[in-house]
Structure formats: C-alpha cells, structure tokens
C-alpha cells in the first residue's frame, strides 16, 4: 500500500551516481563546460516543487507524428517506427500531463539545423522534432523515422549511435530531465564517448529502447519501448515545511 502524497511534498535527493559527472574528459566539450566547484545542495522550497503546467491546446494534432508533421510532397525516407512508453517517478507512480519533447536527425544522420554541415542528405519531408503530453497513466507514444548514426568531431572517427533526444518536464522543477534514447543492438553504444559519460552500466541500459513486437503495426511499422523515470517525492511524515507558517521548526 502506498501513502497518498501531497502535491507540494518535497522530492527525494538526486542520486548523483545515476548520472554522468559534469567533467567527463572522454567527451571533450565537457572539459571547459563543467563547473569545478561543488554544487550547493538546496532543500526544496516552492520554487523547486512547482513547475510549468502545459495544456493540450498548446500542441498541434501532428506534433507527435514526425512522419507527417513536416511532410511536403511525400513521405520521409527511412524505416518507420513507433516509440512509446511510460513516464513514472521513482516510486512507480505515473507522471501525468508531462511534456515530452523529442528531436533527432533523419535516416541519413543529418539534422534539419542550420549548424549541421554533415554530408548526409537532408530529407525535404522530414523535420525531426515532436512533442506530446503523457496521459492519465503517464503513457506517451509517437511515430517517426528511425534516425541514422553519424560521425562527430570528438576524436576523428567517433560516431554517435542512432539516438533520439528527449526533454521531459514533470510536476516539479527539479524533475526536469534531458536525455537520449538509444536502440537495442546498436554496436556504437559500446564505444560512444557521450554514452560512456554515464558511470553505471545499469543506467546505460536504461537508455536503450527495446524492440516491442507486441506494439508492431502490421505491414507498417516496428515499435520500440522506452520508459522514463523522474525524481520521486518524499512522504511528508510529520509536517509540511514547504509553505509553513513563519516560526515553524527548520
């Protein structure tokens, strides 16, 4: 049995071993972009337990359909896939109405971005971004074209495994998370310097979407399953200190 949690309950402390350190020299760009001082740890206040609320009316009907949302004179090139999963917190509770934003390169490994100069061809019918809100069960789904791997400037022959970027906004500002989803069976995962910033193999496995045969769309698309875990809330066992009266015990 689980205890009901208040909507202003504090979040559990972040387990920093679940994440890459700021300084990870194998990923060269992190060297000059990593703070050297220790982070100052804050107990939650209203600033941390609240977060923006998004509404379905802000999204368009094709925002979660990357196959169609930039198609002009035909369909995009590449392998059609569905990606779906649940957003839950560390206690396994669904995170409802979470904003899930995704972006990726096309099947050639090229981003529709004015700064991407890779020789891989742009696809006139593919944009590479989408967004959606999770439902009552914390569930989300979108369809897209499977992205290609691509080379990048780190060492001269480093390649990114095929991946889709995710940004997730949950119920509290401290749940904000940005990450990347990889695909089961991709041999580039083992050597990618960005994947390898993560110190834990278990945590790397958590970023690898598994092929989900049960969700295949017959004669149309394969499917991948990717579940996301955001920070959980602590039960407020004694008293509420978040918006307590002045003079309450610290």
């Amino acid at each position: 049995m689980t205890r009901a949690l208040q909507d202003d309950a504090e979040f559990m402390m972040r387990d920093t071993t679940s994440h890459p350190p700021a300084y990870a020299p194998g990923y060269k760009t992190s060297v000059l972009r990593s703070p050297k001082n220790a982070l100052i740890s804050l107990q939650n206040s209203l600033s941390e337990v609240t977060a923006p609320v998004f509404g379905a009316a802000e999204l368009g009907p094709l925002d979660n359909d990357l196959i169609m949302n930039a198609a002009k004179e035909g369909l995009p090139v590449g392998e059609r896939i569905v990606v779906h999963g649940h957003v839950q917190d560390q206690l396994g509770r669904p995170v409802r109405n979470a904003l899930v934003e995704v972006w990726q390169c096309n099947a050639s490994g090229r981003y529709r971005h004015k700064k991407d100069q890779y020789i891989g061809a742009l696809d006139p019918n593919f944009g590479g971004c989408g967004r959606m809100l999770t439902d009552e069960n914390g569930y989300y789904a979108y369809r897209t074209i499977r992205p290609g791997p691509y080379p990048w400037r780190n060492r001269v022959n480093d390649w990114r495994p095929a991946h889709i970027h995710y940004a997730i906004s949950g119920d509290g500002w401290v749940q904000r998370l940005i990450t990347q989803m990889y695909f089961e069976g991709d041999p580039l995962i083992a050597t990618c310097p960005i994947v390898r910033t993560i110190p834990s193999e278990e945590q790397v496995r958590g970023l690898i979407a598994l092929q989900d045969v049960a969700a295949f769309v017959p004669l149309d698309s394969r499917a991948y399953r990717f579940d996301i875990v955001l920070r959980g809330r602590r039960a407020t066992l004694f008293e509420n200190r978040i918006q307590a009266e002045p003079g309450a015990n610290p």
Partner: protein
Amino acid sequence: MTSLLRETASQTAGPYVHIGLAPQAAGFDIFEHNFGSVLATRDTRGERIRVEGIVYDGSGTPLRDVLIECWQANAEGKYNHPADRQPGKSVDPSFRGWGRTCSDFETGLYTFDTIKPGSVIGRTGRPMAPHLNLWIVARGINIGLNTRMYFSDEAEVNAKDPVLNLVEWEVRRKTLIAQRQDRDGRIVYRFDIRLQGEDETVFFDV
C-alpha cells in the same frame, strides 16, 4: 521498505537542442505554437523587465549554442501551479512564468522578456528574495545546471534570503545577482553565467 527506481540518466542536450526545443532558432517553422523567451503578455501584471547575458565557458568564450529555461513567480510572488497555496496571493491568468531562450549563434547573448517576480515564502516561513530559477543545457553539459538569478536592487531582502545565505563563501553570492540598468526607460538586468573558472557561477543541486 519502499523500493526505489533509479532516475533515468541524463545526457547532454547536444549541439542541435534548438531543433527540438526552439525549432525556429534552428531555422525552420514546424509547430503552430512555439515556446519562447517572452514570458509577459500585454495583460501581465508587474514591472516589465528584460534579462540578458552571456554564458561563458572555462576559457572565457561565450557559449553560442546554449539553451536556458526560466521558471518564476508572478508579481505577487505566486507560482502558477496548483501546489502553491500561499494565502492572499492570486495567480495571474496571463502569466505562466515559464519560458526558454537560446543564445545568439554569433554573439552568445540570451534574453528573456518578463516581469519582476515578487517574494515567495520559503521553508519554515522565511521569505525568499525575488528570484528566477534557471536551468541551463548545452553541448558539453552532461546534466542540466540549476541556478537562481536575484536582483541587485533588492539588497536588503537578498541579505536575508535563505538560499543566498547557504552559500558559505560570501564572495560567491554575487555571481547570483543580476545588475539593474535603466536603458532609456527600459529596465534591463544583466546576468552573465560562468560555467567554470574565476567567478564561477554558483550552481545548485536541487
């Protein structure tokens, strides 16, 4: 005992974060409704301000590919979120209090157009000085960086702010305070962020 799942691991936003979070900045128009750097609408109550600055790396070079999100209370010091139950304060329906901005690809300058927030109650009833909560992501940043921006013209309340006072090194607190400027009647707060090196900005584990 409750068994806990592990939080999904963070990964860098990468150099093309704009395509997902600010596609117009990436050079194409795809969504009907875009999230942007203008938080205040015509009807929003409060003092109109611009927040601007540059994010620098450890060599002093501007980041030209950074994305920053802002979360703030309204002019009365209330967050537009159901968990904020501070008595006597109301939500401003024309102000969500959230936005995102990209630094300029040439200069590295970022801007937010918003209103100055009011003071929000802190833990155990100690008021917090007005502040913006900022979240910074970019290529080379493996996990989003959290910081707060306070206001230079609020010296008295800043001195009592429970979060600023947690920063043991008084000399570092100034990295969290934006400087107010009046540019021909337009109020601008300058807030540069230094990821590393001399005057490294204070970042929080929230």
